[in-house]
């Protein structure tokens, strides 16, 4: 979700610039590697193809739409598949960090402060939450159903920690194996922070064990209530 909202708008112009650069680079490679006479012939052929395609696109509307429709259809199909499998979205490895290649030196500073429903802290080995408008720390937070909600995790402890939200269980369609659904932040060092966006579709009463947030390695659980 964060990617969709924050990075998404940058992807198309960035990709376009890269593609344009690639085309210019390839053109230059071709032009520098062919002789003057062969180059002229080659580019006459290429220009003819481009003009022909442009002519067809201009005068035959049925032709014009096809490549675009094909690309859009492929995109829609990919988007559909990515949405249809919530398991792939919500499930991550939230145990000890096994990869040696995660961004250990990330800035871990979050700028989305206006959109944070709750902040989860870990300090002196204990996890607790603070909510806008409620002065004292709380051990339960309420999240509206079917709504994107940002939860900020701030590590004030000496050790590295990550925040994990437990979202119940789900049977994997192919195998029937029941696996835990959980989502988590990256590891954050002292005074670092991470943001987790969740959208919970079912109320707490739909879950046998409810929803909860915890910080592995720290005491205390925060109950997540979806009314």
């Amino acid at each position, binding site marked *: 979700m964060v990617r969709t909202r924050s990075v998404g708008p940058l992807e198309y112009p960035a990709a376009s610039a890269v593609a344009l650069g690639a085309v210019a680079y390839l053109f230059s490679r071709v032009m520098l590697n062919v002789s003057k006479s062969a180059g002229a012939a080659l580019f006459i052929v290429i220009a003819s193809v481009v003009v022909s395609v442009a002519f067809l696109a201009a005068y035959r509307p049925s032709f014009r739409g096809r490549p675009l429709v094909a690309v859009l259809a492929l995109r829609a199909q990919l988007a559909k598949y990515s949405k249809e499998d919530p398991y792939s979205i919500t499930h991550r490895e939230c145990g000890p960090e096994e990869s040696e290649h995660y961004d250990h030196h990330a800035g871990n500073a979050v700028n989305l402060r206006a959109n944070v429903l709750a902040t989860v802290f870990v300090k002196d080995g204990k996890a607790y939450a603070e909510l806008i408008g409620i002065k004292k720390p709380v051990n339960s937070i*309420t999240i509206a159903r079917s709504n994107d909600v940002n939860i900020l995790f701030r590590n004030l402890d000496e050790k590295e920690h990550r925040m994990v939200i437990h979202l119940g269980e789900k049977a994997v369609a192919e195998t029937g194996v029941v696996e835990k659904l959980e989502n988590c932040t990256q590891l954050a060092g002292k005074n670092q922070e991470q943001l987790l966006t969740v959208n919970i579709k079912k109320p707490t009463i739909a879950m046998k064990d409810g929803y909860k947030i915890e910080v592995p390695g720290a005491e205390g659980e925060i109950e997540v209530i979806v009314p």
Partner: protein
Amino acid sequence: MTNPTDNTAGKKQDMKSTPRNPRRALAGMVAGSGLLLTGCATNAPQDIFQPKGPNAHDINQLQKLVFPIAGIVGVIVLALATYIFLKFRDRGQAIPSQAHGRPIVEITLTVVPALILSVVGVFTFRTIFDLAETQDTEMVINVTGQQWWWEYDYPVQEDFGINQPIITSGQLVMPVGTKVLLRETSRDVIHSYWIPALNGKKDAVPGRINLLRLEADKPGIYAGQCTEFCGLSHANMRMEAVALSKEDFAKWVANQQKPYAAPAAGTLAAEGEQVFLNQCVRCHQVNGQKRADGTAVIAAPDENVYSGAAPNLSHLMTRNTFAGAMFDLLRPACRKDVWSAKPEEFGAKYLAGVSEDCLNATDLRAWLRNAPAVKPMYADPTKLGPTDGKYRGMPALGLSETDIDKLVAYLLTLK
């Protein structure tokens, strides 16, 4: 050579040929008078000049300063402009000599507005900061807008006896004399929350949490309206804030936390519960409801509604409105009895909820019969392609009159 600006004769002819239209002038006067007379309305629950809480009082105090200043400046500017238009209108006279630069006039015309704006600015900024104060919040309510209704959920707050979250819609219930902080967001498009008697407007934006503080001086109902165009039924997206004394609010909280009581077997209401389970539960949750096998009933609005939510109908008959507060659950006489109650009697009358005698069965039945016919919504099942088959609003369920009888009997038990 002919002077291109010298067309005086033609202009005079044009002016003569433009007849005065007394009817048009009369119509303008009537329209203007009508506009002025709206200020005399007594039954105007959304009147911004009748504040009922400290935040709205602050805004009212500010407007008492700003409106007269703006009014005086406006009158002076209009009078001067009119005088200049009339006095120096083109009669064919020679163009007067053009002067540039009158330091005294220019300095005056810069300094005077700057001073006026500084005075207005000081009071405006002070009010803005006062209204944005959240450090002294006493109670928090989450407000979520969607097409075209408002959902309210009350997080656990043991100081107010809220030991488990409360969820309701249409009417925001709050204790009197308490600084209530609304945390607003939206599930679909931008909405705007506005109870004029209690505070100004605040947008509810998807993915953001905006804060708005409400506080009511006295018990009563305060009407509001979504003020950000949000689609087909924007005009029907209303809300009411209900302020109860602290004792009455505690009673309301206790009632909202009561467990679900299924209707007695063999009654019409029990049959209505089956209709509810067959139809309504696809979107509407009633907390605590169970199927015959004892499993909890879980509504699935996320599968059927574009916003992913539909009003939770637990304790429906403790509210006075339905369908995004567009319709009253109370008949007009009963509604008037509650709305016009004295502050000391209001709580008891509101907490009485909706009885069978007071139920506005006409509107409720019409809603159950064909909801899109009484409130415009995107609920035509043949036109749901853009939303992947999901409704925006409530569709027509095709219920028979017998089913509607049963359903109304069941809904009346949700107290």
